């Protein structure tokens, strides 16, 4: 990463930390929610935005992280170890999900990840000894490196530290041979092969790293909610994450955070406004409606997301960061058959 990216990352995190710790419990809750969503979006941006592999299973991968970390810390391990465990199992399951990507591409692979999501959701429900079934696994607040995580405020620092580390790691990754290989694979697997890139290997690395970050995000989500339940990690969550990186800007550097903040904070804002206007009974529906419409409108009118929108408003703004120039994956994701659309 560049020095500028480092400064921005740390600066934003410090700002979020100050807000989260100074403005009370609700602010801390929001900061945690944004940080966790940004982590999940970061992982998906790596897989979809940089490597060009569609995945609808990210929601379930977060679930794997949450259940793993929950069980580990419930068993008495330190939260830091438990989070690491969540990340590792997330990576392992993600590798399994990505395995068909070695043979399938585009649409077929997208459908395979959809199936993976459905199967994982099912496993959350029935692997009773590990997941406590449909009622969900209650997670006792752990201690992380000795600090008890018994409030929203206490989780702010670990969430943000992990977010910064993951963010810098991914930024750095994109400046290595592997990161550059991702970008070529995204544009065209054929070109990548011709250039001597081991395409399968690159894809698998994207799934491993993306799965690790998703697992860590899930672990933090479990600690934030003190519960890991099947309803929390459904296809809807996967769709939320895809929406975040699309709204933030696919394959852009600041996109995951911008998209996460938008998707997390918009419903909260609607909630507040709605409560003030006295229409709280249809709020959840309005939230959904706004969310769906935004996805559609962004995809049609600004497919490169808020990052592009912001950088157009302010030409030298955050959107001008490296990797922020062009976002859309190329032909590699196109269907190979009946393609007359």
């Amino acid at each position, binding site marked *: 990463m560049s020095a500028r990216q480092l400064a921005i990352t740390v600066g934003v995190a410090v700002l979020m930390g100050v807000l989260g710790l100074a403005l009370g419990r609700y602010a801390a809750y929001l900061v945690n929610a944004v940080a966790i969503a940004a982590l999940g979006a970061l992982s998906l941006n790596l897989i979809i935005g940089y490597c060009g592999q569609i995945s609808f299973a990210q929601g379930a991968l977060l679930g794997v992280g949450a259940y793993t970390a929950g069980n580990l810390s419930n068993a008495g391990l330190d939260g830091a170890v438990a989070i690491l465990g969540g990340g590792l199992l997330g990576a392992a399951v993600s590798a399994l999900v990505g395995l068909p990507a070695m043979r399938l591409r585009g649409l077929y692979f997208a459908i395979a990840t959809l*199936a993976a999501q459905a199967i994982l959701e099912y496993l959350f429900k029935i692997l*009773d000894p590990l997941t406590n079934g449909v009622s969900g696994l209650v997670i006792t607040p752990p201690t992380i490196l000795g600090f008890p995580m018994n409030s929203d405020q206490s989780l702010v620092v670990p969430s943000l530290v992990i977010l910064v580390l993951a963010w810098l790691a991914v930024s750095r990754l994109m400046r290595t041979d592997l990161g550059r290989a991702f970008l070529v694979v995204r544009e065209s697997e054929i070109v990548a092969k011709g250039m001597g890139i081991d395409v399968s290997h690159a894809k698998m690395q994207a799934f491993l790293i993306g799965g690790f970050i998703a697992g860590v995000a899930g672990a933090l989500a479990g600690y934030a909610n003190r519960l890991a339940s099947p309803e929390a990690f459904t296809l809807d969550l996967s769709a939320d994450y895809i929406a975040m990186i699309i709204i933030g800007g696919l394959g852009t550097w600041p996109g995951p955070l911008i998209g996460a903040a938008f998707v997390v904070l918009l419903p909260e804002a609607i909630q507040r406004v709605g409560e003030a206007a006295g229409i709280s009974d249809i709020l959840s529906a309005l939230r959904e409606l706004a969310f*769906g419409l935004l996805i*559609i409108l962004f*995809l*049609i009118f600004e497919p490169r997301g808020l990052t592009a929108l912001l950088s157009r408003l302010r030409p030298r703004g955050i959107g001008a960061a490296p990797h922020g120039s062009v976002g859309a994956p190329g032909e590699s994701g*196109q269907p190979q058959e009946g393609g007359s659309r």
Partner: protein
Amino acid sequence: MTLALQLAVAGLATGSVYALIAIGVVLIFKCSGVVNFAQGAYAMVGAYVSYVLLRTGLPAIVAVLGSMAVLAVFGTLTERLVLRPMLKAPLVAVMMVTLGLLIVSRAACLIVWGPDQIAFPKVFPEGAISAAGIFITYNYVAAGVLALVLSLGFLAFYQFTPIGLQQRCAADNTRAALAIGIHVSNQVSLAWAMSAALAGLAGTLLATLNGLSLDLAGIGMIAFPVIVVGGLSSLAGALIAGLLLGMLQSFTDGLLTPALEEFLREHTSIYSVGALQQVVPYALLVLMLLFRPQGLFGRRGTERV
């Protein structure tokens, strides 16, 4: 044996409805290259529209046809307003926009009709057939037979009529179709219209079986295993795979689940396998993609480099 027959008949009935949904998905895929997440939304909206029309006292047949017409308009609008501006967008964006449409439709229905299940007006006579030791309600018979007949009818339409021929032309080779004077973009719109109308009907039929609620939108997801098993571009494959998966689910629910649970209770601490019938199609999907990605009836080599 009686149980097996009972399960088979029930499976065929739901399978026919799956087929109706999946045929629509394949139809859209063939001419637009898009796998449509909003198919479930069409089913749900179709059911609600039928409900509204039935409540006005219209005869059932008129109400259902009216709802199909409304859905045809909805489908056309989707294609013209949402899909067409995204011709050059990456696959993930196109899949996502149809998912967005599903979310919006669900929210809109939630605002208008609320979250609770609504009893669907009687469309078919009450009562049941009891023959050869099996017992099946008229509702089931009617929904199954209607869905099956319409699926077959649609396949015949697609195969044997001039419009069907133009559809096939436009789907197979856009350039050639244009060259011989077929208005391809109209054909694409037409495909979306027909597909949405079929889904609307399927939604209505499902509502007569299970009642009317937002959950109807979930039916769209079953289309994915069905079309992969049938072969992404085969309409007949969608029909056969729909019936197969309906039966598979029925047998899973009626035979496999009880047997498996008994075994698990004896040997492990898992006491329930939950809704196994819902996940079995996905397991089949994964196996299919790994070992026969072109599906049972798809053409080999369709997934080229």
